[in-house]
């Protein structure tokens, strides 16, 4: 009875627009107080202790660092030079600019760790370019929003770092490696319907008449950007850096490129960059720490076990349960961002994962794929909101285009469920 009431209060608070962290913290505190009504101070001293415990983990330090990397590369002018180089390779033709947008978003995914930041960086360059070439603004916004969703799959990824902190037995390097192949598949899955739609609807009529950048010159200009993922991912692979260290090396590399090579970042921009990324990291970290209180209260109330038992004994079978979870999480994913979803649902779902002996790394990739789909499913899509704002269109107008992209990426998720090796082969091959 008490858990049900509290859960309802929690959901109502969230729907009413109370910050997720506050809703989690208050619901958690209320649970703890009700469960320990006879203890000193109602056992509430566990609240600050769990606030600390939720946050005081060294691996979480990678989050502010990767957010900072994203903010720096966003302003460094790397995206523009990568686009020029990609156009020089594939040439000018119908459907080529959307293809470039997707490939560049995937490539930036190898540098930054969050989808909306990627949508902002790619959108700032590509949406104007695509509109000059004659693509409808709503189509460009759809392509950019969907392409940026590959970011949380392609390492480094803030979502994987949070998942790894929550789940024993899923290390950050293993998750990063596991996201690589599904991330690339997701990108290819977006390219196919995008190019097909562009050709079918004869979009981008002016594209063929635009100048093609010179290959060698654009390659030289793009080298600094091209080297960044090599440094980050290669450095981690070679054992030079931990994920946190790789992020901080990328910070200084990005600053060097932006301030010395391209001269797009001035000294006074540093204040804005540090403030913005600090605030954004704090927003994420606060939810992480307050979710710690919520998770603790769930475990003291003992609500997870009965729910788990009910689910596994429901007669749906392993794949029935998985299908149900996917359906539920895709729905939730339209309302909530990935980090919040992980923090709320991973503690709840963990006993189910253990019951069916699912691989924690594989499950993390599936969850992340679901979150990625949610990021560009209208009407409540984080990435699309960013790209629509840049393109100046309403999200309703993108519905016509994103449908096929969603379907195509959904097939990738099905493939990863059917063939877990798609996610698990690379981390095993690399020895994580």
């Amino acid at each position, binding site marked *: 009875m008490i858990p049900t009431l509290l859960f309802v209060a929690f959901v109502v*608070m969230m*729907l*009413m*627009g*109370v*910050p*997720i962290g*506050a*809703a989690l*913290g208050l619901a958690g*505190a209320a649970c703890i107080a009700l469960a320990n009504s006879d203890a000193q*101070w109602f056992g*509430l*001293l566990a609240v*600050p*202790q769990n*606030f*600390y415990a939720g946050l*005081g*983990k*060294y691996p979480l*330090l990678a989050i*502010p*660092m990767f957010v*900072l990397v994203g903010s720096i590369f*966003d302003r460094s002018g790397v995206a523009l030079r990568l686009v020029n180089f990609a156009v020089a390779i594939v040439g000018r033709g119908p459907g080529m600019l959307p293809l470039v947008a997707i490939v560049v978003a995937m490539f930036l995914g190898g540098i930054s760790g*969050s989808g*909306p*930041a990627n949508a*902002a960086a790619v*959108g700032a360059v590509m949406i104007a370019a695509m509109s000059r070439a004659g693509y409808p603004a709503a189509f460009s916004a759809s392509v950019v929003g969907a392409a940026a969703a590959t970011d949380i799959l392609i390492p480094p990824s803030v979502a994987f770092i949070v998942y790894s902190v929550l789940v024993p037995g899923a290390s950050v390097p293993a998750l990063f490696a596991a996201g690589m192949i599904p991330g690339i598949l997701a990108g290819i899955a977006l390219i196919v319907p995008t190019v097909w739609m562009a050709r079918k609807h004869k979009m981008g009529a002016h594209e063929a008449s635009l100048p093609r950048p010179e290959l060698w010159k654009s390659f030289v200009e793009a080298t600094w950007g091209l080297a960044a993922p090599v440094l980050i991912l290669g450095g981690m692979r070679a054992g030079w850096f931990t994920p946190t*260290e790789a992020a901080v*090396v990328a*910070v*200084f590399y990005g600053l060097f490129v932006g301030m010395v090579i391209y001269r797009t970042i001035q000294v006074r921009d540093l*204040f*804005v960059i540090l*403030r913005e*990324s*600090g*605030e*954004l*990291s*704090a*927003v994420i*970290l*606060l*939810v992480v720490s307050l979710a710690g209180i919520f998770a603790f209260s769930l475990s003291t109330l003992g609500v997870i076990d009965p729910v788990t038992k009910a689910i596994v004994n429901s007669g749906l079978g392993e794949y029935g349960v998985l299908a149900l979870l996917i359906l539920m999480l895709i729905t939730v994913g339209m*309302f*909530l*961002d990935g*980090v*919040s979803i992980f923090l709320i649902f991973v503690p709840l779902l963990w006993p189910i994962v253990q019951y069916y002996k699912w691989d924690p790394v594989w499950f993390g990739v599936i969850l992340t794929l679901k979150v990625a789909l949610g990021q560009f499913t209208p*009407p*409540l*899509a*984080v990435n699309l*909101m*960013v790209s629509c704002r*840049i393109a100046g269109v309403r999200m309703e107008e993108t519905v016509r285009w994103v449908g096929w992209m969603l379907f195509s990426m959904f097939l990738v998720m099905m493939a990863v469920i059917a063939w877990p090796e798609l996610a698990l082969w690379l981390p095993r091959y690399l020895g994580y």
Partner: protein
Amino acid sequence: MSNIHEQAGPETAAADHDEKTVVPLKIEDWLTVIVMGLLSLITFANVLVRYFTDQSFAWTEEFSVFLMIVLALVAGSASVARNRQIRIEYFADSGSDKRQRALARFGSIMVFLLFALIAVLSARVVWDDYRFGETSPGIGVPQWWYTIWLPVMSVAIAGRALGLFIRRGRRS
């Protein structure tokens, strides 16, 4: 649709669009910049020292984690004042102006309640740390040097939430 506004790019993130607050947000902003800068420098120094001298700088881990907690609280305080917490905006940011304002006030008073509670409870934890002379596991300094900042910053966050509550009640 939980949305992180600042990711929408520089044009929406400009600090000059801030609403006026009684206590200037510059305080939190400067602290955020300093802590972020320190965190990057310490971690980077760690990498360099390890490569060039074979020595581990591992004791800095404790300090870095502490700085990260400070970052979450200090920059979190600014994000509360700017109303940039992750939240579901679908229902709260639609409908009549009156409804939107009422929901915004409800949200901010809940944030106030939570952090007021954390401030009281964590003050008690600090008192215990001080009374029993707890020392930190890594560097061995008194634990309350670290824990004291949770009640202090919780009061600040609660204050920011209260400020937002008042501003949302005033504006038409």
